[in-house]
């Protein structure tokens, strides 16, 4: 399993308090394509969001998004995690 980052843009902006409005549609599809949600970062103005996933490949993440009809702006990219430890 590798880490993947997805960049979502929202126009009009979403209510940042409610996090990702698409998560209900997305979560069953994530399971189908063997993708695990790790964390999300939502811009305070609600215009964009970055989500981190674990998945077998980037294609599985894209596929899950498309199957759930959730728009994503930029490419899904594989990532390595660095922390100060």
């Amino acid at each position, binding site marked *: 399993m590798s880490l993947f980052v997805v960049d979502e843009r929202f126009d009009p902006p979403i209510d940042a308090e409610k996090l990702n409005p698409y998560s209900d549609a997305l979560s069953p599809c994530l399971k189908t394509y063997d993708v695990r949600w790790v964390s999300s970062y939502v811009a305070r103005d609600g215009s964009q969001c970055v989500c981190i996933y674990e998945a*077998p490949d980037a294609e599985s993440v*894209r596929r899950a998004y498309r*199957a759930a009809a959730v728009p994503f702006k930029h490419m899904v990219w594989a990532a390595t995690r660095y922390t100060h430890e």
Partner: protein
Amino acid sequence: MLHDGRPVELPPSKRTRALLAYLVATYRSHTRQRLCELLWQGPDDPRAALRWSLWKLRPLLDHGRTQRLVADRERVSFEPHGAEIDLIGVRALLNGAAADADTASLEAVERRCRGDFIDGVELPECYAFQEWRAGECEVYRSLRLDVLGTLATRLAPGAPERALAFSRRRVAIDPLSEDAHAQLIRLLVCLGRHADAIKQYDTCRHILEVELHRRPSAVLEQARTIIRAEVGVSDSRAPMPPPVEIQEPAAARPLVGRQAEQLALDEIVAAAREARAPEVTLLLGDPGIGKTRLLEALHERVRAAGGIALVARAFEAERTRPYGPFVDAFRGIALAKAPAGIAAEVSRLLPGSANGPPSTDGAPDKSRLFDAMARLLDWLAARRLVCLSIDDLHWLDEASVALLHYCVRQARGPVIFATAARRGELGDNPSALRLTRDLTRGRRLRQLAVGPLDPEAIAALVSDVPHGTDVAWVLSESEGHPLYALELARAGPGAGAAPAESLDELISDRLVRLEGRANDVLPWMAAMGRTVHPRLLAEATELPVGEVLSALAVLERRAVVRASPAADDRYDFAHDLIRRAAYRRISPPQRRLVHARIATAIAAHREGPETWAVDVARHADLGGDSALCVQACLEACARCLQVFAYGEAERLVELGQRHAARLADASRIRGQMQLYAILVHPGLKLHHPGPLGAQIADLCTEAADAGLTAECSLGFKLIAQLHHHAFGDVPRARAAIRRAVEVFDSLPAEPNLEPLTDGAYCLAYLEIDMRRTRALFDDLARLRGVEGLLGFQWGIGLISLWEGELDRARQALRSANTLAMRAKKTWAEFDTLAAIATVELEAREHDRVLALSPELERLADKLGESGNEGPFARSLAALARLESGDEEGAGELDGAIQALERVDSRYHLAYVLNTAAQIAFRRGMLAEARRRSEAAKRAADAVERIGESRRAELVLAAIEAREGRPEPARRFVAGARPEDLASLPRRTRDILPLLRELVSGHA
């Protein structure tokens, strides 16, 4: 059955007898499968049971070189070879309607008709057999009535006495027929027996009033007019003498004889009080030999020792009533003080035993229920000696057998487990037989064979039958059989002169002498099939409770019924043989009426909240009330699922389906769909998931046609659930179908197939267990309107591509592409078009691949640069170029593969790299082929694309062989089993011939 004029003893197993009857009566060959379904449906090994029965029958039928039982691996039949079969004889004699046959033939037919068709071979749990049996019974019954009626009419002018005998038989068989009564009355008048004629008229009027709530019709009134016209003519004969009134003590008879058995009972109680490891006592013997009386003696000992006896018995009619005997045994036991956890859990089985509902901590399961029941027994046993006693083990339902077994294994305190069974019939109950075998193996079964009584005991037994009994005669005729002895004694002092009749006949004769309300109540009680509360009896018969009670008092005095030892307020027959005799006296049409009324009464009354539905289902079945039967089956199934009695639920579904099929359309569809919903319950083992999916799909279409949207939606959900269970071992498949199930749960009733087809498409895309996925699509294909759904066409296309059915794949994918375009789903449009390009590549239509390329590029651009679409489209084009000999393809392929790696699309990489490796192999570039194959395997394994992973392995094996190392290829060739190959895509399987060629080249 006779051989050389002597009776042949048939095997005691009822199923074996039923098999014999079926083979002989149907007189044709049957598949083993059919016979198993008819008589041995269930989780055990039906074929082994059939073999065993055939083995038991063979010595009875085959003699010397004459082989009557003809069986091969597939089929079984009976061939008479000179054996005289009454049924065949009757058919030959009649050869049409009775009116066309001569009188001698009719009399010959009547001589051959002895009782009902295969009387006594009832198998209530084998519905298909029962159905056949009931049909045949009806045919032969109406044939016999026809013959008797014709004979009585023809003989009336010349030989009225003989006609009278036939007419009486006709009335006995069909007591509800006014024609039959009228004919009998006319004959009695003709013979000058006016008093008997008047009595016959009164009897008929009484029957009509009690059974049908009807007044006599014109036919009967005409007959009455004839009597009136003849009044004044002297009555030449006296009416029948009044019946002998037998007064017997209502209390249980004292136990006589049985010294050895009584010692054994004392020892059992002593052992339990010393808290030795509990064992099960099994009393084995023939019907009427005294097993129940010995069980009662054990209960008396337990009570005398300060203990408690939990007493119940199993009933033949109640094999689908799960845990019935346990419910009966614990009825009336105060469980209020039992620990809360236990009481709450057992309340599932024994409603009213707890104030709160069962625990919701964790999923409910059978083991928790069983554990609570075992702990309940232990809790009771910690206070006092406990005896759990279940009579007639041979009829115990599957669920109760399992629970009993569990309780025996778990019991620690002083608990006595006692049961009794008919020797020969235990073999008809596979689960009970298994229980006794397991207990024997574990040395926890104490068998007591109950044999005949000694002469002194028999003399003591009949000593209080209140009229002069010829004891010597009883002793010699009964051969120590206590029930037979009692019946002989009850038959009266004159019986000594007559030859002894069979036990059944003796009982029947005694019942014939009953009169008035006792006679009215008797058939109802017999039809109930179990212990009865007088209130229910009153409701069913529509008689005042007071009259029912006095009728029961008469029956009790005459030792026909007795207060049930298991429940104070109920009555039971003094012996099951008496119940059987009483039931046999009811004619089939009357039986239907009686059962239908009982079903309605129980349904209205809901007596015994935990089991009423099973009872209603059974009576409604026998009473032919299909609507009530289906409803009751559904309620009973819900109860079965609640107490984890899955085997019983399955049998009830089968019964319900049989009746649902008889209902009018909307009710039928509704009933059938709800019954299917029970079958798809996760607790039930799916015996035939394939046909079930297809049946549900067909019913969905019918529901849609009938405008039953809720049923239609339920059907879709069931199909999804069915496949959800089928994919039990593949988490991703389960997730895909689970999604469909969840969406259906949240949908309103409006049918919408998309969630289901989308879930199915995911499975096809992920290439998970494609055989099951294909089954799912086969089911979906039966649903109307499914062709217009993107998910369906797309899935069919991908499966067909996987299977190598390229024409079908092309066609479906084109439809999917059009649907995606219409829905403005660009990514789906690209994917379906890319799949078409893949089909063309595999069909070696390279020009077509290249022709699709610009459109694929255009769609990829539209989707943006971040995805796999552009690189994948370029890969397909490059592969087509290379295959068609264009060397520029090589460079393009490298670039496209690198791009696919960059966007991390291992799913597509696996396919592209494998195809590239095969091209390199064909061109003899083994190093490149190896590099591509190894990369393909890594990519395929990462996304669990098993078909592509195996393809890489096979190509690598081919490379090794080509390089002089044939071992891996040889291993593949040797280990290729058909079932493994079927789980691989065609493109992978197609490599095997190459491997074989390479291996044989090395050889």
